[in-house]
Structures are given as C-alpha cells and as structure tokens.
C-alpha cells in the first residue's frame, strides 16, 4: 500500500532541500560573479521558508502523529526544533556570506551543503524510527564532514574534516549496532512500537536491549558532544571554517539533544531508571570536562568549543530530568544557546577575517571598543553563557534547574552551580580581552597581526546583522519568556513523559 505523504509535515525539510538544489544549480547556471550571491540567497530563502513552514506546521499540529508510514512524526516537539535549526541556518548563511570576498570555487556548493545539512537536521528531529534516525543522522553528518573540510587549502580544515569523518562514522557505527540490537530485541524500529514491545513483552531486563540502549546513548552523546564522547569537538570546531563551526555548534547540538530526548522518552520510557542516571552522569562529566578544559584555552574557537561541551552537559540535565519541565527547559535553552553560540562564533569569525589568522583570546583585545556592536553582542553572549539575567541564558539555567528540582535532583543543580562558577573565568576572559584593555595594551594588540589587516576593520554588514539578530534573540528570550515557554510546553507535551 502506497503511504500517504504528508507534504505539509515535510515542507520544512523540502524547503531546505529545494534550496540546496537551487544553490547546487547555480554552480552550473549562474555566472561566477553572481554565483555566491544567488546561492546564498537561495540558501537563505530556503532556511527562511523552512522557518516559516515549521512555524506553520507547529501551528497546525495539535497532537503528534506519525506520517509517511510512521517513518517520521509530525508533532510540535519536532517542529519546534526545526524552527531552531532553520533559524540557525539562516544566521549561518549571513555569517558565511562574507567568508571569502571573491574568486573562490565552490561557493554555490557550500551553500547547497549548508542547506542540505539543515534539511537533514530538520528531518532528523522528526525521525520516528531507528532507520530514519540513522539516515537523518548520516545525511546531515556527511554534509558537515564536507563542510568542515571545505577549506581544503587549510590543513586544519582538512584535518578537522578527516577527524570528524572517522570519529563520526565510528560513532554512527556504534549507534547503528545499538539500533540493530534494539531491533533484534524488540523486533521493532519505530520508537513508539519499541516502547510498546518493551512493555508488552516484558523486555525491561533484556540484555540485548540494554546493550543497544547503551550504544544509542553513546551515539547520540557523541553527536551532542557530551563527555566522554566529546573529544572530537574542540579539534573539529577549531579546524572547521568558523561559520560552519557556528552552525554545527548550534544546530548539531539542537538536533542531537532533541532527538536524544525524543528517543529516550518515547522508546525507552520503561528504562528511565537506567538512562536518566546515565545521562545525568554524562551531563556531569560534560560540565566538568568542558569547563575545566576551557579554562586553559587560548584559542577563541577552541574555548567556545569546550564551552559548547559544557552546555551540552547543562542541556543533558534537562534530558536526564525526564519530565515535562525538562522538555520545556531543553527546548527553551536551545533557543538562546543557539543564538549565543552562533553569535559568538560569528564575532570570532569577524576577528579572524580582520586579522587573517586564527584568533586567540588575546587577539580579541580591544575589539569591544573598535567594533562596539560586535563587542557588546559578544559581551552579552558570554554573559548569556554564564546564565546572567538580561539574557535568555538565565532562563535556560533557571528552567534546567527547575527540571532537576522537579526530578528531585538538587545535587544536579549544585553540580550546575559549581560548573557555572568554574566557567566564569574563561567567559569573562573574553569580555576582559574585548573591553578591559586600554591604551598601550590596545595598540599592542593591533600591531600584532599581519599587515594585511591594516586599516579600519572590514564592514561585514550581513555578519553584523546576524550578530545583532542573535543578540536580539538572546535578549528578547529573557524578556518575553512566556510565549516561548508556552510554545515549549506545547512542544514538550508531544512527548509521553
């Protein structure tokens, strides 16, 4: 029987996929001078369309249900995440646009891959069985492998691509074997069906299922770059082109965590006594490792990479809470986090372009005064990462802690507090570099980079606009928390907590 295809549910994915196709075509059809602009425009339109479509789907989906032969699910939980992904992609396009002034190959393919990756992610968050899960994962992963290595001329980029590919494939293989074991144990691929099978056949203690669960957690933890599966993160984030890093840090984390929550809650609800503890431990490890390692980083991107590890830890607390509050917390947290992460990497990218070299924290010296908009934005992002009020990061932490409290895990809140305190020095070191140096120190920093970057800083309107947009999201999510929470609550309702 031919399945009925819910085109509407697929529309966000298709928008991005279509944009990828158009962008790909421009590589062939549009003359060189226009190629970049057209491809970027196509990608941007795709992401914007996906955002709109996801919002529409969200609006017109009251309760979740499987579509396309139950291969994917149409619910608010997924579409909420799709919106985040599409928004991240939109900002990523803006950040990327000034990446290379002119005369470079494969601009069009770059945007095509970006859009394709976005499509993969959007698809992944609506995956409803292990097969679509794996395929979606590989879809966006392979796109990202290529994007990481797209600066083939830079050895770091190449190294990052290769490392990501090998470790990523390794992780996928682990996930896949886990899926196979779960399939073998329950005989089902669909998430809900797995849960049914577990309860119907009394499979709670099934060793194959447990081993499979361990492997699935590992595979998803890897994508979310949670410790101890995080080790690829700093290297890849550092080596990859910065706009790609920005996109990865925001969107990959979003989909990995959203999917982790979906599969763990939907399929393995019966095993929650195991996986909540495991996820909590992984969260703690991520918090510890990410923050400690970030303390001693000098490279700005690497620092942010470790910071993303620690934030994975925070969001995993919400996952571990395994309750409605956790769902809300995760979905809320992802919005400011994605904005801040994208924005922060964008600012680093701006500095890198200015200096023509990878930016260390010291290289950011004085940037707050030279480029106040970026500076203030970066300042806000850093404060948001810490969880200061006036940024959505505050509510993120607040809600995560609330979820932990609802779960009864006050100790987990305290771990989060300690981790935040440990994280302060390095976040503030960026603000310090950007704002707290004056006079002689400033001139020193300016004279350090190579002469290519002389004169006034380049005007990167789109990048600035993206940063301002991220700033807006970061700040607005603090003040207008209620609508977002309403949305997140409806979305989290889709999961069977």
């Amino acid at each position, binding site marked *: 029987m031919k399945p009925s295809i819910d085109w509407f549910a697929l529309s966000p994915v298709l928008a991005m996929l279509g944009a990828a196709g158009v962008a790909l075509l421009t590589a062939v059809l549009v003359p060189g001078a226009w190629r970049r602009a057209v491809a970027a425009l196509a990608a941007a339109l795709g992401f914007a369309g996906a955002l709109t479509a996801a919002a529409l789907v969200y609006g017109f989906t009251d309760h979740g249900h499987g579509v396309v032969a139950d*291969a994917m699910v149409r619910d608010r939980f997924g579409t909420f995440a799709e919106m985040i992904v599409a928004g991240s992609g939109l900002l990523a396009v803006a950040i990327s646009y000034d990446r290379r002034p002119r005369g470079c190959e494969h601009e069009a393919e770059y945007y095509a*891959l970006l859009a394709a990756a976005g499509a993969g992610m959007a698809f992944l968050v609506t995956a409803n069985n292990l097969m679509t899960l794996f395929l979606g994962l*590989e879809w966006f992963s392979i796109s990202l492998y290529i994007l990481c290595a797209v600066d083939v001329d830079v050895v770091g980029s190449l190294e990052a691509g290769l490392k990501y590919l090998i470790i990523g494939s390794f992780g996928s293989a682990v996930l896949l074997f886990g899926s196979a074991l779960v399939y073998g144990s329950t005989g089902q691929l669909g998430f809900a069906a797995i849960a049914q099978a577990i309860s119907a056949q009394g499979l709670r203690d099934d060793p194959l299922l447990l*081993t499979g669960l361990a492997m699935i957690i590992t595979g998803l933890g890897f994508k979310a770059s949670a410790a101890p599966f995080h080790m690829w993160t700093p290297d890849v984030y550092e080596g990859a082109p910065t706009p790609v890093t920005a996109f990865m840090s925001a969107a990959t984390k979003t989909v990995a965590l959203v999917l982790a929550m979906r599969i763990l809650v939907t399929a393995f609800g019966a095993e929650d006594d195991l996986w909540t503890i495991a996820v909590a431990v992984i969260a703690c490890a991520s918090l510890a490792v990410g923050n400690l390692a970030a303390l001693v980083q000098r*490279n700005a991107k690497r620092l942010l990479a470790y910071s993303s590890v620690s934030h994975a830890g925070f969001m995993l607390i919400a996952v571990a809470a395994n309750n409605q509050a956790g769902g809300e917390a995760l979905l809320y947290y992802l919005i400011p986090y994605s904005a801040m992460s994208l924005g922060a990497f964008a600012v680093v990218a701006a500095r890198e372009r200015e200096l*023509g070299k*990878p930016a260390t924290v010291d290289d950011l010296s004085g940037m707050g005064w030279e480029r106040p908009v970026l500076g203030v934005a970066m300042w806000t992002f850093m404060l948001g990462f810490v969880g200061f009020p006036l940024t959505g990061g505050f509510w993120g932490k607040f809600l995560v802690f609330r979820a932990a409290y609802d779960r009864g895990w006050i100790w987990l809140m305290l771990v989060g507090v300690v981790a935040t305190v440990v994280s302060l020095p390095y976040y503030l070191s960026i603000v310090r570099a950007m704002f707290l140096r004056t006079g002689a120190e400033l001139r020193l920093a300016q004279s350090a980079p190579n002469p290519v*970057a002389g004169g006034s800083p*380049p005007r990167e309107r789109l990048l600035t606009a993206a940063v301002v947009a991220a700033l807006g999201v970061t700040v607005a999510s603090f003040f207008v928390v209620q609508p977002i929470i309403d949305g997140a609550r409806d979305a989290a309702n889709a999961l069977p907590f």
Partner: protein
Amino acid sequence: MGNFLVWVVWVVAAFTCLGSALAVISFTNPFFSALALIGNLGSLAVLYLLLSAEFVAAAQVLVYAGAVMVMFLFVIAYLGRQADAPWAGGPSWQAIGATGAAGALFVEIIVAVGMKASGRLSDEASIDTFFGTPSEIGRLFLTDHLLAFEITSIVLLVAAIGGVILGSHAQAAGPPVDGAAPRVGAAEPRPSGTVPAALPPQGEASVR
C-alpha cells in the same frame, strides 16, 4: 545432508569472514587490506544468503564488493607508496587499550547474546518464500520505507557533491609547495583578509 552442507558452507563463510576481517586490520599494505575486505564482503554475502536475504546478498556483492571496493583500490593505487603507513605506533598502552576496548565490546555482545539466548533469541519466525526477495524488498521500499529510500538517495547525492568539492578543490589548489610549513597552495594569491599565506595556521592554536 543438505543441512550438513549448509553447516559446512556456514563454517567456511564464517571463518572466512572472521579471518578476512582480522586480515583487513592487520595488513600493512592497504592494498592487501582492501583485498581482504573484498573477501570479507563476499563471505558476508554468503551468510546473508543463508539468512534468506537474497537481495541484500546480491547488493552486497554488486555494490559493495564491486563498486565501493573498486573505488578503494583505485585510490590506493593512485596514492601509491604514500598509502603505506605504519602499522600501529604510539605508546603501547594505546594498542593494549584498543584491544581491550574492542575485546570488551565483543565480550559484552557475547554476554548479552548469551544471556538472551536462554530466552527467545533462538526461536525464529517462520517465513514464506517471498522473504528477502527483490520484489518484496522493492515493495517495502516504495511503501513502508519510502522515506528511507528517498533519504538514502539524498545521502548519496550529498556524498557525490562532497566528492566533487574535495576532489576538484585538490586540483584547483595546484602543485603543492614542498615542506611542511606553508600548507596552502601558492598558485593563486590568496585574497586578503581570509586565509593567511605566511602564518602557520595553527601555530598559536596548539599552545596553551
């Protein structure tokens, strides 16, 4: 008798599979490894047949052993001597750790299977003759797993684009400069403000 033959085939295929897998990871020369992998894939195809997965077995031989491995061999040949790399190296605890971790995984799977085997793992469904036939597979691909099918094609497409980008980029970069330090192509001058020409890109990145 037929059953005995199946057993023989199974044992041969299984041991070929195991042996060739070990061979893949043991050979110094990637070329031999690749050949061993072909053997591995072939023996797997036999096992698939024994598991009533005719179509998969065929695909395994055609796609995998045929197309993919040819690509492998081609690249290995293209790279020539460069493809040779040390067998292992690094601190010995790494090898020990690797063996340990892999062994642990294997043991765990055996234990899991063993614990489960006392349960219901051995009893298997009765299947009809259509099981695993191309038509049945095709039907499923166009109904229940339509989405997976489509996505598979998209993934392949993405990979193709990647191949293009990575491959052609390498060509566009022109003749590589000798030595380790300048790792970027010097054929065309880099536009200002993006990628440094003279700086070792990760010079500062790796220091703490």
